[in-house]
């Protein structure tokens, strides 16, 4: 029963540098290879397609953005979830939103893996969101104007959509917070998990990217707004299992 493996030999400095593809001072790993000049986010076709009408923008057409059907949600559930995350982080003049960044794919994969316990909460919550929308605004959620969708989501966030007959398990706020939390993970987390496509989330908040070593000079460049962002997943270093 003894773990005969013991501590594995440390990754040598040379291995680190070789893997990172660069040599640098003081065992830090510079980001020279990964330095990519930040581009301004492309305005997506979807944002351009939004059209004005009385009462606000029409919800954008989400179908072309879906890489394929989701494995853990039905087509109907996917439509409702798409509309919801599109309001949480919309595509707008500041750049890509949750749908562009692959948040649906992130959530779908999460429901197959680490968040498999949440699948029922998604199913019941999305159905309840639609029911609440029909009861209080007279239409399915996906057919509401963005202003009405937002007002429904505010009710759901505040827990005001909780009640018999609607179908939220517990407070509607719990459902909202779960979806919001997963949406933020998909937007701002490591791209390994299917979200943050084209580093859309990191660009939005000017996160300069994953580096293993940040030298004093790097920090000074950051403080002078002269540090170019690196765009890579933590797993692109080739060091991690």
């Amino acid at each position, binding site marked *: 029963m003894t773990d005969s493996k013991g501590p594995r030999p*440390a990754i040598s400095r040379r291995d680190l540098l070789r893997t990172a593809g660069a040599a640098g001072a003081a065992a830090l790993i510079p980001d020279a290879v990964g330095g990519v000049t930040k581009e301004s986010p492309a305005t997506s076709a979807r944002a351009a397609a939004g059209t004005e009408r009385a009462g606000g923008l029409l919800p954008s057409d989400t179908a072309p953005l879906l890489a394929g059907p989701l494995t853990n949600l039905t087509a109907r559930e996917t439509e409702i979830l798409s509309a919801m995350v599109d309001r949480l982080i919309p595509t707008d003049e500041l750049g890509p939103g949750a749908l562009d960044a692959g948040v649906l794919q992130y959530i779908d994969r999460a429901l197959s893996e680490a968040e498999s316990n949440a699948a029922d909460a998604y199913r019941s919550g999305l159905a309840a969101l639609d029911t609440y929308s029909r009861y209080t605004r007279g239409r399915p959620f996906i057919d509401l104007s963005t202003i009405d969708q937002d007002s429904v989501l*505010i009710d759901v966030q505040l827990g005001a959509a909780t009640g018999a007959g609607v179908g939220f398990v517990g407070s509607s706020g719990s459902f909202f917070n779960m979806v919001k939390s997963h949406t933020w993970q998909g937007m701002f987390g490591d791209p390994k998990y299917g979200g943050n496509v084209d580093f859309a989330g990191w660009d939005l*908040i000017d996160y300069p990217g994953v580096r*293993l070593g*940040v030298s004093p000079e790097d*920090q000074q460049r950051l403080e002078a707004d002269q540090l170019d962002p690196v765009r890579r997943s933590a797993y692109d270093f080739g*060091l991690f299992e």
Partner: protein
Amino acid sequence: MPTQLRETDVVIVGLGAAGGVAAYPLAEAGLNVVGLEAGTWLDQRDFAPDEIRNNYRDWPMLVKKAERERPTSRATSADTASQIGSHPMMNAVGGTTLHYWAQSWRLNPWDFRMVTETTRRYGASRIPAGSTVEDWPLGYDELEPYYDRVEREVGISGQAGNVRGDIDPRGNRFEGPRQRGFPMPPLRWTAFNDRMADAARSLGWSPFPGPAAVNSEAYDNRPECGYHGFCSKGGCPLNAKNATHITTIPRAVDTGNLKVVTRAHVTTLEVGSDGRVIGVNYLVGSNQYFQPAKVVLIASYTYENVRLLLLSKSRAYPDGLSNNHGQVGLHYFSHHTSGSVQALFPYDTKAWYGLPAQGVAVDDWADDNFDHTDLDFIGGGNLWVMSDRRPISAASMNTYGRSRNWGSAWKRFIHEHSDRSHGSYIQKTTLPYEDNYLDLDPQVTDPLGLPVIRITGQFKDNERAIAAFMQDKMEEWYREAGAVEVNRGGLGNTMGASTHAYGGTRMGDDAETNVVDRWGFSHEAPNLGVLGASVMGTSGARNPTLTSQALSWRTAAHLVDSWTDIAQ
């Protein structure tokens, strides 16, 4: 029937911050040591800088013993306890030092003599009602050589403020005298750290860099910190964070005298008819083993140390091992760190690349460093301004009422402000009280059917008064540095589970009110030692790990010196 193993000199239950340190002086002295660890070895390859994995999916622990034994928690004995959502500690060789913040403070001399010093300066009536606080059985001076040794063996960076009485204004002028400086200079500061230090000075305070178990320069053949920003709940991919799995444990293994057994889930300690401990029972998967030992040191976390004793019932100890005085589980407290303060600045802080142990400390309002005559509390807090920011948490920031926390208006807000908020970390003096304690939950069990720990704990008036006082100080500091918005959290109520959990097996000379003696050995079972913050009777205003490690080294050194007496 369990497999009977060959007797060893010492068994250590848990190879984390405390057990991982104690193993080294024991093995070095030639004692045969078996370290039983519930987790596995993990290394650099497991430590991806990945916020989803580390901070939202609870890390790549291969073994989740702690998680399966989550305590229940309630404020008072009149409440019903409910199980906490997740356990703050992890199982692995090295324990939670793999992903801790690595702040490595010595306690202030006052923390060891709170009762005497408070009585002398303000009168006995100033000890809060209901508190069971006692002076420690040892003073700072007695622990100093062990602090010094552990700072070198583990590797601590920092700036000394008091070397043999010579005050150095670059360091903490309130610290107890140290025999020499730190083995490494402090971690570097960012421009925001400098700005906060300047603001503190303009208020007349004494800012200084905090001590960290993180390499500020190459040390022990391992590189300096990479400041990559994923240190909080993240292991170090460079091996620059000095967790015990890369410091004292491998050194102990190298002596040839430490045998590390991983995935070893200790269930109970066995006791002989004379009341001495004779060994421990453990499981590896479904296989049962009995490891006989001359001496047993329990070094799991506070909750697990207490639980192991309470679960180990015998004829000699019907209410749990070493509990014939009814003290196991008493004098429990978790560090008061609520009463938060957050600020929004009109400039970027450039905090993306930093770590929680990198920052600016102010101790002017800690311990008894200021006059409490006209105040309604004793003790105080350590103000800590650190650099710690990751993308998901940054994007989840408080919007200070300036926008909803989603939608296009939020996108504009976050685009501008994602690097402009700061949340301070304020650790406060926390006392034990007669009605705060740990016991076995009467209903909730782990998958083996054994009861989990129940926490009954509530912060009292003294803790809440400190919190309000410290919030005023922190807001003053933030405003001085240009903050445009300041938010305050609640002052704290239910203690709950914490990474800073103290007491339950308190150390003291009086067997009527303490479980272990001044050396860390049981008052009742003489060959049972206890390691970890569960022996600490006061918290001070700073992280417990270094003190717990210094105490562990001292207990191990005492065992070596007194081997014949203790092991018979």
